[in-house]
């Protein structure tokens, strides 16, 4: 799709580059040199990245990034509801990632859903003598205590790799003994430069251990699809899945929000993989395409404009039946969405937003803000790659600032200069900007709200954005004394 060039009054390539240069002034030379290529002015027409990305974080700059383990546990594995996910190593990693990502699950905790923290709680002696024996014992204990778990993932933390434990062989042996899928995932936090490698490693592990190990018992249909890269934050999957079903598709498996191991294992039999979060799961889509010939399609379920476009693109991959349903669904929701826009747009028109999120939302949500009359004056990712930034360029207004893995300092300076009416980023940034009196929404966790996906999600999104921007509390920030 070619986009018209959007501009923001007062923002030019020059102004943005000046802003970047001024921001970097405080940096030591080496750091400045490292950081400069990660900050740029968007070239909307080019449709390609204006920044470098997926590089090591510069030490000491206060990055928002996480690690490979975080990507593996928090994003890919954690949301699979019917598995026991063991954080293998010291207690902390599992503790920090326990319940903090809002990937909702159906089922009963400890019965057929396992959102607790499982850890091997490494002690000094495990470091010295190795943890493989402990691992095997805990796998047995997990199987005994949680008989309905469909499998166990073993997610390595830093020490495991560093001391040279062989979790793969331990897992393999236990899997056999316990007659249960036990998936070892070498996602130590020191691997790679961000969460991103954790996604990739996890995808590879799914490829190696899971995909193709099951088939659906019911007959295939032409409308079988899987929903990839939706983690059910605040119920996103439930909204997205319902919408896909409304246009006549059979959502056979979900990766991995509220996901089920065996359905994921049988995904190789679907007709199309629909992928929402490209960054975290494009690997598996590509694998399934290569290996099983399953085509895949990126889509965007944020905001009525993008949803409409996405539904039509999806429809194009199917027959007239689906295409007709797509039109019916669009016709059904258009007036509902218009009513929402009519309610909130007058209160949000012309408001500026800046984003810094993970691997999808910095570009995917722009349309939704625009549906509400807002414009995006800066965007960036914690852990994106060039292909993400390529996809971002056409969405962002021209010449606006793009930042890759920005330091808190950079983000603050940009915000100070651009004076956004809203910032959408993570918990680590939230209170920094709120202290400055800038409205903020956590855009990793939907700020404990959601869903934001699909038509259902847009009503929640619009309400939340209005609430954040127009909360009367902001008017109180400036002291009269």
């Amino acid at each position, binding site marked *: 799709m070619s986009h018209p060039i959007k501009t923001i009054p007062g923002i030019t390539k020059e102004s943005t580059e000046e802003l970047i240069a001024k921001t970097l002034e405080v940096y030591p030379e080496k750091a400045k040199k490292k950081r400069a290529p990660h900050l740029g002015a968007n070239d909307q027409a080019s449709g390609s990245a204006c920044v470098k990305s997926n590089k090591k974080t510069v*030490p000491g700059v206060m990055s928002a990034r996480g690690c490979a383990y975080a990507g593996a546990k928090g994003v890919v594995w954690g949301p699979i509801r019917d598995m026991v996910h063991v954080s293998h190593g010291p207690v902390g*990693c599992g503790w*920090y990632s326990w319940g903090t990502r809002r990937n909702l699950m159906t089922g009963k905790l400890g019965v057929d859903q396992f959102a607790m923290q499982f850890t091997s709680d490494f002690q000094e002696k495990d470091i010295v003598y190795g943890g493989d024996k402990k691992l095997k014992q805990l796998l047995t204990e997990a199987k005994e*205590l949680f008989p309905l778990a469909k499998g166990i993932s073993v997610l390595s933390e830093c020490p495991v790799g560093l001391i040279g434990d062989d979790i793969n062989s331990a897992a393999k042996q236990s899997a056999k003994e316990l007659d249960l899928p036990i998936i070892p995932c070498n996602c130590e*936090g020191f691997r790679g430069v961000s969460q991103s490698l954790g996604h990739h490693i996890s995808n590879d592990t799914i490829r190696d251990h899971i995909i193709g190990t099951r088939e659906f018992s019911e007959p295939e249909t032409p409308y079988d699809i899987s929903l990839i890269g939706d983690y059910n934050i605040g119920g996103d999957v439930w909204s997205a899945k319902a919408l896909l079903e409304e246009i006549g598709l059979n959502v056979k498996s979900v990766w991995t929000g509220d996901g089920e191991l065996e359905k994921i*294992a049988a995904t190789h039999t679907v007709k199309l993989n629909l992928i929402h979060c490209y960054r975290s799961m494009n690997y598996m889509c590509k694998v399934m395409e290569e290996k099983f010939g399953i085509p895949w399609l990126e889509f965007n379920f944020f905001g009525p404009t993008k949803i409409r476009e996405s539904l039509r693109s999806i429809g194009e991959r199917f027959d007239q039946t689906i295409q007709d349903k797509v039109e019916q669904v669009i016709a059904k929701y258009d007036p509902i969405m218009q009513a929402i826009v009519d309610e909130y747009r007058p209160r949000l028109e012309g408001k500026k937003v800046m984003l810094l999120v993970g691997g999808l939302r910095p570009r995917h949500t722009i349309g939704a803000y625009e549906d509400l009359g807002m414009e995006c004056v800066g965007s960036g990712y914690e852990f994106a790659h060039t292909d993400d930034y390529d996809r971002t360029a056409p969405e962002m207004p021209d010449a606006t600032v793009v930042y890759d893995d920005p330091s808190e300092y950079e983000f603050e300076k940009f915000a100070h200069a651009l004076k956004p009416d809203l910032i959408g980023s993570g918990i*680590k940034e939230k209170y920094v900007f709120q202290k400055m009196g800038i409205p903020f929404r956590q855009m990793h966790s939907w700020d404990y709200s959601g869903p934001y996906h699909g038509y259902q999600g847009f009503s929640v999104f619009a309400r939340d954005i209005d609430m954040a921007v127009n909360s009367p509390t902001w008017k109180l920030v*400036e002291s009269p004394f």
Partner: protein
Amino acid sequence: MSAEAAVKYVTETPESEKERVAAWINTEEYKELNFKREALVIAPPHTCQPLGAELVAHAFEGSLPFVHGSQGCASYYRSTLNRHFREPAPAVSDSMTEDGAVFGGQNNLHEGLENAIAIYKPKMVSIFTSCMPEIIGDDLVAFLKNARNKGIIPEGMPVPFANTPSFNGSHIHGYDAMLLSILQTLTEGKKVEGRCTGKINLIPGFDANTGNFREYKRLFAEFGVPATILGDISDVFDVPCDGTYHTYPGGTKLDDAADSINGKATLSVGPYSATKTFAWLKDNYSGKHAAIPMPLGIAKTDEFIKKISELSGKPVPESIKNERGRAVDAMTDSHQYMHGKKFALYGDPDQLLGYVSFLLEMGAIPYHILCSKGSKKVEKEIQALLDSSMYGKGCKIYMGKDLWHMRSLIMTDPVDAMIGDTHGKFACRDAGIPLFRFGFPIFDRVNKHRYPIIGYQGVINMVTEICNKFIDIKDETCEDRFFEMMR
């Protein structure tokens, strides 16, 4: 790739089986199986050392917490503090990656220090480690010496550091290690023979309640006793929203901390979370030293007040006597709402001892007492408290257990309520009992950290929250005919 031959189909667990297991996990049989666990730890309510180190690294003027290790670790610690306090928690890491394992972390540390100091302009950088450097054996003493030699660390800038391996102890030990290093660093060479600041130094220990810190300060002020809180988070994690953001909004003044070695006395109220610090202080600080329990409940607050009086040589002021009387008044007036109520509780040793003491004072029963990371000494001290009261009869202590054990306890031997942190909410939901969030972290309620639980005011706060919740429950669950105007 899987080596399976025959086609395996996707299966569905039958509802009846789910129901069977759902009932089974609540049984005594399951509890026994659960308590047999030796390797698997499920939902432990403690975390790793660096978190505690970061908390106290924030607690000094202009101090920038610096994680020597993977950046992911730093993000986890920061997020935890952000969520609990709903406040910023600026900290950096030196972003060690794979090559660190090969070459060691010195380059990362040096580059990180250079950048952090240039960008965030700290007065002090407080370094602590996560797993990787601990395992590869980074020599921080040498690295820092080199950094000074290379001019990376500006002249005179204190750079304390603590080894805080995650595979050892818990957040309270990391707190202790970092605090010790900060004090050692700041006081080095500051001891002046014959000098006395006239102040009492207070070591609160690991405590994530900013209200407690303000309350300590208020009590000292009420006494007219000058005090230095060593590791004061009150203005760090309870910051006004006035349109400006400050990286270092508060904390113990570095000069005060340095001069604390010449204090009139040093009082620790975190005996289990500042153990090593206190042991070192005793040998190195001027003046008197005392370690007493955290002032939770009346008796332990009395001990605290008496100790201030003793150490300062000042009589207990009338205003504090009146506060005590008002707290006791709140207790006598509402003892009936807590008397005989059974509680399950868990947390860090210092807090746990206080909860037990307070509950016994109210005639409530601290029935299941769980400490996921305690010691024999803690256990003995709790047991002594239980033995001192008829309301301690039949209460049991579970050391080294986790919240999945706790779930078995409350499902098989029910209680009326739980005291803990946010993580207890799942077990409480299953048991249908309220959770009183006095611990750390609290992710799911607002402002809890602004209300002190220490001191006499803390007693009133705990009494109020607990009693009113029990009345809420009565009002919400009683039949119409028992729904009444008065309670």
